[in-house]
């Protein structure tokens, strides 16, 4: 194994090179931009044999992806924040037309006020679209998740698009050692994409994206629900085959020192690395603290999260997003699906730093709860 030092953005571009999509329509946006730059270079150098389309907006990028996917080829795009919001219309259409597009989202706050910094509001706001969503903790996981996403999205039992989410700047612009797998191993794990459901072929004409009257619409949407639930089995199989070939084992959730924990924090993405340090520090002092990192957010792994947290007396859920007047989305989904004593904490919006002392404050407030949901790290003088 040769480790190379790279950012998560480069790791994603390396994964895309290995998956070798045929069409790559991308529009650059901070902090995703270097993904589009690496891919442009790979295509220009002939390392990826793909059509690189320099589109005029993100709405066009995802539209071109959908059109290309409709011809039966593998496609890739990447965006962030306002770009993802501009894609919103076609995000839903891509899932409904069952196009197995894989996209990377560099998680960034949504305007207003305008911010280029990290939170997860952008992708969380697309949670109802029918896309699968994976939140990576580091560059290695970002690379691996792209390969797993293609495998799962293109499975005939699933045929839904996937979004791999990486925290803007924290992952996109920091470097760490990454194992870039060999092409032969990737080809074993990820076969050529051969669709037979919906694609345009003059020898087998069909209409895609037609108007649907009330006699058909609900069945089409119900099929998506069945497919997304069914994706859980496919994800499990893909994870175990990935572990066999590449030696890295992923699951819906990652349990970190949580098996005997009295207080468990639940979070997604890069913040989990900081939480692990705090957990280690408090464990050394004899406190029974653990972390459960939700890696796959859609399909929502209700059983896996519940199994991981049910033994704790109290749960603290960190959300880098807010659904105004109800709180963090992950917190609310856990509360809705599970009978657990969970408290929500809104953190890190628009790049607000989440320090170890904030995580300790959250643990204290989980032990001695005063409200269901609260914001952590607000500047006191501004309140």
């Amino acid at each position: 194994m040769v480790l190379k030092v790279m950012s998560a953005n480069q790791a994603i571009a390396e994964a895309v090179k290995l998956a070798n999509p045929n069409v790559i329509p991308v529009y650059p946006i901070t902090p995703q931009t270097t993904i589009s730059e690496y891919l442009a270079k790979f295509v220009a150098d002939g390392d990826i044999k793909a059509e690189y389309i320099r589109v005029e907006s993100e709405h066009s990028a995802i539209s071109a992806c959908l059109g290309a996917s409709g011809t039966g080829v593998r496609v890739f795009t990447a965006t962030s924040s306002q770009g993802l919001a501009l894609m919103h219309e076609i995000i839903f259409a891509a899932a409904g037309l069952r196009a197995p597009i894989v996209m990377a989202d560099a998680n960034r706050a949504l305007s207003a006020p305008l911010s280029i910094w990290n939170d997860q509001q952008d992708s969380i706001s697309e949670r109802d679209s029918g896309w699968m969503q994976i939140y990576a903790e580091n560059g290695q996981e970002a690379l691996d998740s792209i390969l797993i996403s293609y495998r799962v999205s293109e499975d005939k039992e699933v045929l839904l698009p996937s979004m791999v989410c990486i925290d803007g700047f924290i992952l996109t612009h920091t470097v760490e050692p990454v194992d870039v797998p060999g092409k032969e191993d990737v080809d074993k794990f990820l076969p050529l994409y051969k669709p037979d459901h919906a694609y345009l072929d003059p020898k087998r004409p069909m209409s895609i994206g037609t108007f649907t009257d009330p006699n058909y619409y609900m069945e089409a949407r119900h099929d998506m629900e069945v497919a997304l639930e069914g994706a859980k089995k496919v994800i499990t199989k893909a994870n175990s085959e990935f572990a066999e070939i590449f030696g890295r084992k992923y699951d819906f959730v990652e349990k970190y020192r949580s098996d005997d924990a009295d207080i468990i924090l639940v979070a997604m993405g890069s913040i989990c690395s900081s939480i692990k340090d705090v957990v280690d520090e408090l464990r050394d002092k004899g406190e029974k603290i653990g972390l459960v990192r939700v890696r796959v957010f859609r399909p929502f792994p209700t059983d896996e999260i519940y199994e991981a947290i049910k033994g704790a007396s109290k749960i603290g859920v960190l959300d880098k997003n807010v659904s105004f007047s109800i709180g963090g989305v992950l917190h609310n989904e856990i509360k809705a699906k599970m009978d657990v004593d969970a408290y929500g904490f809104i953190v890190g919006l628009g790049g607000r730093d989440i320090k170890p002392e904030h995580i300790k404050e959250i643990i204290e407030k989980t032990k001695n709860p005063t409200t269901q949901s609260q914001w952590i790290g607000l500047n006191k003088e501004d309140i």
Partner: protein
Amino acid sequence: MVSVGAAVKEPGSTRKNKTGSWRTFKPILDKEKCIECENCIMFCPEGCINKDYDIDYDYCKGCGICEEECPVKAIKMERE
């Protein structure tokens, strides 16, 4: 049964889906007044008027463009 992605794999679904039911106003052509200029045929967005100036009410949605374009006012829109 809806196919995956609601793709329509057999041609001819528009034969079953008669959009004329959307209509509120129906164009009535007075062939006595008609000068056969073909304006209505060319402007009809649905291709619902044939060379004999017969209107296909199965698919005419009643937009009224034919009435607007007729130079001799041979077409009148009447409420269904």
